[in-house]
């Protein structure tokens, strides 16, 4: 059990390190993106990492595709 938790901890550690390393190269003032990205203000909406493949209604073609 402890071994599984340790494995999880190292995976999360690695993700944080990679995110932090990548974000540190972003230009100053730009909010870091990625899974550990943070909000400028806590009232901003939360997002999910899922990538949507649905088209927005306004962008549909005339034939409805």
């Amino acid at each position, binding site marked *: 059990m402890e071994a599984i*938790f340790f494995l999880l901890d190292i995976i999360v550690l690695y993700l*944080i390190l990679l995110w932090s*390393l990548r974000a540190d190269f972003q230009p100053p003032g730009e909010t870091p993106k990625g899974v550990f*990205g*943070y909000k*400028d203000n*806590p009232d901003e909406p939360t*997002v*999910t990492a899922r990538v949507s493949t649905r088209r927005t209604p306004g962008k549909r073609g005339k034939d409805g595709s």
Partner: protein
Amino acid sequence: MRDLLMLFALIGMIPMILKKPHIGVLLWAWTALLGPNNLMYGIAGSIRYNLLFAILTFVSMIINREKFKFRMGAITAIMFLFVIVTTISTYTAITDAEVVKSEWEKFLKVVVFFVIVGMVMTTRLRLHSLLLIFCISLGFHGFAEALKFLATGGGHHIFGPGKSIIGDNNHFALAMLMLLPLTIYLFRYSKEKVVRVSLIGLFVLLSIAVIGTLSRGGLLGMLAVGGWALLRSNKKFVAIILLVPLFLGLLALAPDKWFDRMDTIEEADQDRSFMGRVISWKMATAVALDHPFFGGGFHAIQGDLDIWLQYSERIHFLDFIPTREPDTKRAHAAHSIYFQVLGDHGFLGLFLFLLILAGAWLNTFHVMRHTQRKPDLKWAGDMAYAVQLSLVAYCVSGAALSMAYFDLSYGLIAVTIILRRIVNQRLATDNARRSF
């Protein structure tokens, strides 16, 4: 398996540190608080990760193009004076036990970490990453122990990892309490749902871990943090609605033995464990009165049974606080961050230690006050508030625990210094713009 995993992970970590020194600081914090060596049993368990990451961080700071400035602020200057006092107290210690020098070396490592954090972790991104690392390193133990507690229906008595500073159940409770406000800050500011859900889950498990230690100091610390949060909250009604069910929920999870243990708080003057602490405080006071400037050196009263016995005879001038006769079979710890520093480094050391804590406390107020009307710096005010709540837990629960040299507390003090610096730079820019 764990050893192989760690060795593979290490291979990937080294180039990251050399690319950016703040990655080294993050790993340094992770090893200092998690103690990965206690979790491995093969070849990887013998590697001194802390030293390795510290050296790699220094190398990275040298080869990196970014300029890392050392700034001597008030708290850093006091910290250096405190180091001088601890150094003198080490060389004038009342005992020549090996433990004095080894504790001094451990403390120096904490101070080096404090200085490097102040030099390297200078941006919001780096501070945010550091708080995440605090949560996954110390939080790892809380997470695992709370799950064991739940799996056994409250039968598992939670202790920290063996040989570490948080090995004792009370120490462990304090460490978990200090993490709680940080998890809430990270929860509020994290963008991704998966991270937010994980953080709120961690918050609940850490709270359960505090209950599972059966620590009375943990309960007092929890009440102090909750009370302070309520006092400072602009939305007191909402805070009550959130805090009360959380507290009642935790009480519902607590086993009967937890209630039996907490009942003894009212009878502290008859409680053997508490009165043992009072004896230790008397001992520390007696040592400090004998050595007012530099104290008796690290582990002044607990390092040597002869010293303990010697001072057992000399605490009778404090008999106006009634206690039983001190233990004659073994020396005990100071059981208070304040009396620990008093006994170890005298009144001068205690004065400097209190100044450091007060300075950090004032930093958090300064940051909170100056970011109230600056929406783009709201995060700094909220982070300062989270650190302030952690420091409340440290100062209240720490009053009955020997954790004066705890890495996390010095890390958080360094965070307050950086936050103040960020806010001051911004204020200076605003003033310059206005005058232009």
